[in-house]
Structures are given as C-alpha cells and as structure tokens.
C-alpha cells in the first residue's frame, strides 16, 4: 500500500528562509515519491500553521507527516499533538531539523539547500516505516523529594505541602535554612534575613505534610518519573530525637570548643555537640564525632550526664531509609569561591582581608562580634574599607561567568560598613550590574547618601608592602582607576572580597545520581534556558535555585515555587504518559543466547528458563536500544527506532547526495 506523505517546511521568519530557499525546497519535496503534498509556511508552529497540517490530513487523507523546521526538542510535541487532533497517530510523524542543523550553522546558501534536502529525504524515507504507537501510561506516586533545605528548597516544599501532597525534605547540614540563614540583611530592601526566613523554616519544620530529613544525604535513586525509589542516609546525630527537647543543656555543658567553618564561616566557635544557630530547625543538636572529647579520648560524657531526658546516644549509628516518590526537586545551592586561589588578594595571608560570607557573619547581630564591624584584633573599628567586586567571577583564570549577586551584595556591604563604622568605603568594580526591580534605585541611594567612592577597575593586588607615605600598617589596594587612566594605590584598614558563587563541589556526582546533566561550569542543565527553566531532560526531576546557575534570593524563591507548581501539576494528573520507545523480544526468533541479558543497566531483561527465551519488562525498559543492536538473531525490536526506520533514513539521506554528486563530478 502506498503512503500519502505531507511535507511542511517552516520559514521560521527569516531564521530558516533567510538562508534556505524554502520555495525551491518545497517544490522539490513535492516531487518525491510517496509525497502527496509539500508546503512552506512562515511559522509552522503557529496555530495557522498547525491548522494547515490538520486540514491536509483530513482533506487529503495524509497517512504520514514530515515537518522540516527547528529541533524536535523544541516542537516535536507540538506537531505530534497537531497530528493527533486531526486523527493521525502522532508517531506517524517525523521532524527534520533544518534550523539548528542547517540555516543557523551554514553560510553557503546552495549547500544549505542541499543539506536541507538530504535531511528531509531521510525523514520522508523513515516516516514511511514509522508505526502507529500508543503512549505508555503510568501512575504517579504523589509523594515528592526535595533535596536541599535552603530558601529555595523550603519554598518548594511548602508550596507542595500546602497543596496537600507529602514532601521529603533532605538537608545535608544539621539545620535547614541554607546560606540565607547566615546573612544579616538582604538587598535591596535591607530587611533582616532571619526575620523573613525563620517563619518559613518553622513552617517547614512543623508542617504535617513535610518529613524533614536533616543531617542526611541521598545515596541512591532508582526508577523513572512517577515511580522513583530513593535511599537516604541519615547520619548519626548521637542524639535520640524522640527524647530530645532541644533544651540546649548538652551544648552548654560541652567543654570542647571548635571553630565553626560552616555556619560561622570560620569566624566563630561552636561546641562539639551543637545546633548551628539558635533558630535551627529541627531544634535537635548533632554531635561532631571528630572533635568530641569522648570519641577522641574515651572520657567526658558531660552532655550525657546533664541531659535531662537521657537523649544522648553515643552508640547511635547511621541509618538508611528508603521511600518512594513520584517527582524530585533539586535545590542543592552553591559553594563560595575559595579566595585563596587568588594569592595576590592576600586572603588567608593578610588578617584583615575577608570574604563575603565572613563579612556577613561579622555584620550579623547574632554573629560572633554581635554585629560590630571590627578588625581581626577584635577591637579596632576600621577607618577605611575597600570592597572588591567580581572576585573569582568574570575571569577566565577562575570562573568565566558573572555571579549575578556580587554587585548588589557589595553595595549592601558598602551601606552596612558606612552605617556601622562611618568608615570611608571604596567599591572597586568592573561594571555595576543592577538589573532587577528596585536594584538600581538602591545603587542610586548608595551614591546619594553614603559617600562611597566608586573606582572602576579590577583590583590587581592587595599588599601590605608599604612604599609611599601613609601606607605603613595598611592594606594597600593597587588598581588602575580606568576612568582616569592612572594606577592608584589606596591604603585601607579592611578589604572585603565579594567572592563568586560556585557549583557545589560534588555537583557532578549529584547530577549523575539523579540522571541529569551539568554545564561546562557544572551548573545543572535545565530543559530549556528560557521556556523550561526548572525542568530537566529527565522526566520527573526538576532543578531550582542557584544549583541551576547564579541567582539571588527573589529569583531562587521564584524558581522553588515554579518547580513546585510543575510537580503539583504532574501529581494532579495522577498519571503520566511515557514515550512508547521500548524494546521487545520476538520469542519466535530468540535463540536464548542470553547476550542481551547483561546489556541492560536497568535489569529489564530476564531469561525465562522454562521457555528458553529472554523477555523484556516494558516498565523497567528505558528505551536506549543497546540490546537491540546487540541481539545477533535480530529478535529484539526497539519501537520507534527500528532497523527498518533507521536504515531507510540512511538511504534517504544519501539519495540526495548521490544525485547531486553525479551532477557535479568532483
């Protein structure tokens, strides 16, 4: 039976038509065998374009459709739906990417036309062999896993919990709150970070729909959208949370003081048994076994002696819990750029050079100095302070990207220093980037009221090597003031490095664990940078907040809520349809050689001993097709990627080339 194929060529405005002669292409396609109609149109994806296809399917009785336009990753779903509406099985459709693979990457118009023909010819040959398929419908487990308990994860968890679904919120540290809990003020409104964050932390901690798993890390993820099984390791707190009331007596009585390099960024001390900060959620402390006197020396147990409820449990072990969820949101946040990597800025060598998190703690009213901005000697109030922007960012030696928050953060620092010390403040910047709501107004405000001196230039070095009068005992910032074209040496008492945001050190492993991708910088990759910013290429796994790329609190909260909305939408549907791209064994042809058995990482293939053949479980099969290629008997078929479909596509693609080569001998 001969098929009736319709070929539709999209101009994509001038994106395609500007390079490819679409009229000639459509004329040529119309002449191909089996092609009943070929048309070109300005925007095939528009409703008018889609109606064109629907009308042809119905009126001309098309049995196959090919659209030559953008990448199938953008509009395959659009056109499949269009076919479906007109009564044609959506899998009897093929797409040829003549935008991403031709018009955008080819300069020569003649060659672009030839390449477009080849791709369309391949698609037409293939589509004839396409088979009508029905999507696989699976149930969605309504439970959700949120990884990361910073402001993004908290927001996402609360949205989902409020919608009535259960959330497992997993956090690596002893308390949720993330970096935001370390801050004093938040830009541009300067409201107190703790005042706006604590209520949300409290809600997350007490919400009946949220199971909080702090001091815990996800170890294993199996399954697919709607049906994930997750294993989480709960590190031993050495505190029985059933008995603990969070009274804090253990922490008071613990004799061991440790420098807190996490919450206090190395600026303050904590005990060996501790909650990182008073408003911590949950309220239960954790024991730092590496530093606990009992664990190191065998005696002490002060915490146990004084605990009124007997909650201290030195024998407590790590526990691995396992549960099922339907969707996952990753909100794993960021690490601060290590300023030691730029030795010329003196961080780690010169006492009064601080990084941004250290300054946050220094200026925090609940911080180690009670919010007093003083030098490392613990008493001296700085008379002059230099704030350096873009530290580790926008620099090919470190991170090429802009960290997005440093300008506003540095302006905030300038304001806080001025307010708390009255010191002369210098901001050293390359560009001031204040693009969002009320941000530039904040910059204007600093310019108007704070007498901050702005020097445009990337600082070359910070040194204590005095050379000129007035430099003795100071930190000297050497920089070109690019607006006057002069090198300047500016002596100050304190330097604050506005360090950049970096992906978590283990971002790559986490991405692998959840089956998603990382960019070259190791930020998690979203499905589409503009139109699908919180979904990933893996169905059922979403990303939100800084783990996807540098952003500030408002945007992180927005993304947390957005990811939650996507998940709630899916859960509400109760079922999800999966691509029917699955492998199956034709028992007649199977010789029982078992070569395919060890090809599948998802354990979808089993050998039926009684029948002497292998069998594939469609619920576990992910459709990669590796077993199909491996089967020596050709007994395995990979639906929608069958041998016939692919071999025909190869033939189709090369048919154009051969014709053309005969015309123009090399």
């Amino acid at each position: 039976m001969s098929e009736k194929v319709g070929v539709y060529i999209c101009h994509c405005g001038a994106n395609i038509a500007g390079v490819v002669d679409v009229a000639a292409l459509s004329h040529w396609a119309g002449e191909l065998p089996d092609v009943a109609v070929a048309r070109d149109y300005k925007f095939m994806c528009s409703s008018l374009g889609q109606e064109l296809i629907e009308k042809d399917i119905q009126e001309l009785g098309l049995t196959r459709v090919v659209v030559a336009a953008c990448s199938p990753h953008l509009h395959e779903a659009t056109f499949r739906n269009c076919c479906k509406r007109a009564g044609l099985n959506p899998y009897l459709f093929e797409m040829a990417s003549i935008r991403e693979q031709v018009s955008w990457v080819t300069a020569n118009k003649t060659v672009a036309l030839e390449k477009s023909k080849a791709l369309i010819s391949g698609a037409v040959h293939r589509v004839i062999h396409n088979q009508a398929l029905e999507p696989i419908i699976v149930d969605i487990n309504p439970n959700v896993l949120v990884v990361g308990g910073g402001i993004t994860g908290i927001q996402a968890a609360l949205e989902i919990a409020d919608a009535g679904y259960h959330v497992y919120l997993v956090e690596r540290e002893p308390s949720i709150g993330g970096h935001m809990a370390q801050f004093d003020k938040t830009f541009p409104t300067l409201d107190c970070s703790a005042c706006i964050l604590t209520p949300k932390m409290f809600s997350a901690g007490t919400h009946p729909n949220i199971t909080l798993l702090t001091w815990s890390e996800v170890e294993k993820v199996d399954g697919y959208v709607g049906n994930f099984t997750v294993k989480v390791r709960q590190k031993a707190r050495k505190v029985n949370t059933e008995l603990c009331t969070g009274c804090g007596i253990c922490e008071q009585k613990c004799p061991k003081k440790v420098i807190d390099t996490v919450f206090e960024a190395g600026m303050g001390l904590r005990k060996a048994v501790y909650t990182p900060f008073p408003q911590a959620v949950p309220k239960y402390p954790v024991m730092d076994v590496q530093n606990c006197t009992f664990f190191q020396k065998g005696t002490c147990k002060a915490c146990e002696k004084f605990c009124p409820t007997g909650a201290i449990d030195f024998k407590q072990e790590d526990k691995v819990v396992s549960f099922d969820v339907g969707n996952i949101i990753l909100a794993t946040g960021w690490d601060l750029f290590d300023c030691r990597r730029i030795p010329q800025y003196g961080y780690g060598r010169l006492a009064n050079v601080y990084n941004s998190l250290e300054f946050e703690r220094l200026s925090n009213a609940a911080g180690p100095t009670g919010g007093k901005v003083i030098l490392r000697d613990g008493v001296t109030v700085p008379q002059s302070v230099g704030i350096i922007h873009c530290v580790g960012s926008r620099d090919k030696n470190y991170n090429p990207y802009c960290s997005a928050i440093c300008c506003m953060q540095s302006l905030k620092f300038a304001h806080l220093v001025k307010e708390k010390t009255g010191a002369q403040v210098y901001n050293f910047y390359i560009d001031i980037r204040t693009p969002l709501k009320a941000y530039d107004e904040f910059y204007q405000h600093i310019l108007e009221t704070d007498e901050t001196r702005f020097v445009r230039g990337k600082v070359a070095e910070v040194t204590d090597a005095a050379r000129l009068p007035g430099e003795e005992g100071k930190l000297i910032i050497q920089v070109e003031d690019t607006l006057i074209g002069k090198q300047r040496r500016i002596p100050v008492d304190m330097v604050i490095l506005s360090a950049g945001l970096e992906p978590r050190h283990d971002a790559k492993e986490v991405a692998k664990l959840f089956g998603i991708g990382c960019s070259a910088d190791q930020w998690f990759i979203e499905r589409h940078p503009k139109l699908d910013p919180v979904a990933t290429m893996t169905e059922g796994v979403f990303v939100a907040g800084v783990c996807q790329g540098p952003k500030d609190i408002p945007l992180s909260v927005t993304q947390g809520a957005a990811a939650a909305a996507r998940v709630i939408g899916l859960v509400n549907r109760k079922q999800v349809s999966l691509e029917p791209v699955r492998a199956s064994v034709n028992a007649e042809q199977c010789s029982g050689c078992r070569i395919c058995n060890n090809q599948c990482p998802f354990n979808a293939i089993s050998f039926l001993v009684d029948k002497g053949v292998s069998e594939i479980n469609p619920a576990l099969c992910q459709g990669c097709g590796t077993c199909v290629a491996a089967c020596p008997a050709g007994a395995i078929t990979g639906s929608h990627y069958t041998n016939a479909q692919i071999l025909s596509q190869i033939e189709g693609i090369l048919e154009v080339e051969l014709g053309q080569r005969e015309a123009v001998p090399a």
Partner: protein
Amino acid sequence: MSDNNQFEPVIVGFTCNWCSYRAADAAGMARIKYSPNVRLIRLMCSGRIDPQFVLKALSEGADGVLITGCHPGDCHYVEQNYKTLRRYALLKRTLRQMGLEDNRVRLVWASAAEGRILAEEIDKFVSDVRALGPLNWIKMATTTYVDPAPASA
C-alpha cells in the same frame, strides 16, 4: 560543491538523544558555522548503533561515519556508551578486514553543553575524510525492510 572542485565528502552522523544531538542544537543556537557535510541521525543512545548501520551508510555512498554520544560516565542510560566504545573498537577491526580505511569511522564524545566542541570535531573529521578521498564502495543491493509488529506494551 565548492568552487575549486575540491572533493566534498558525505558523512552520516549518529547522535544520541541526550548529549550529542543537543550539542548539535547548542551549536545551532550559538550560530557556530561548521562543515555542512555531515547529516545527523538521531537515536536514543549511541548504544543503539548497530554495525550494520555504519556499513549501510558506507555502502550507500557515505565517505565517512561519525558516531557521537555522551562522555563516558555521563550516559543518560548509565553505562551504555561504554558498550558503544567496545563495539567501536570491534567495528574498526571489521572495517580493516574488509579492506576499508578504519579512520573513515570516528567516535566523538560531546555533552549537551559542547556545541563548539562538536562543531570543531565535525570540521576536523570532514577535513580528515576529505584527505582520504572518496570511498566509492560497492553499492549494496537495495532491500525492502519489514519490521515485526512491536509487542503491545
């Protein structure tokens, strides 16, 4: 194709759906111009590549075949690209046994972010195959392919 009658090889490229096809998308979005000689075929995974696809392409007139996939360790299907790697080595041996230059087939890894790298690799491969000259392998008899009906899922 070109004005100076320089030999322009025809190359069939296989990509996986997750990394290398997206790398081609990324190259497009970044408007990176690269050799137009390669025509890509999308599969779900480089593990789907059956050696007969490569032989078919070479026998139908392709002068080279490019196989692309996710970087080892980054496979969307956990480890299937390692199987591609093993098959690739076998395939090269087979090609040599058939009297073909085994460097007409090349394996390239490209992540979804590596549009520029994919474009550079394509340029390199095209120029290498161009140096090898046309293949002109015996054209296989055209056959009709019939797939068994898929098992109902």
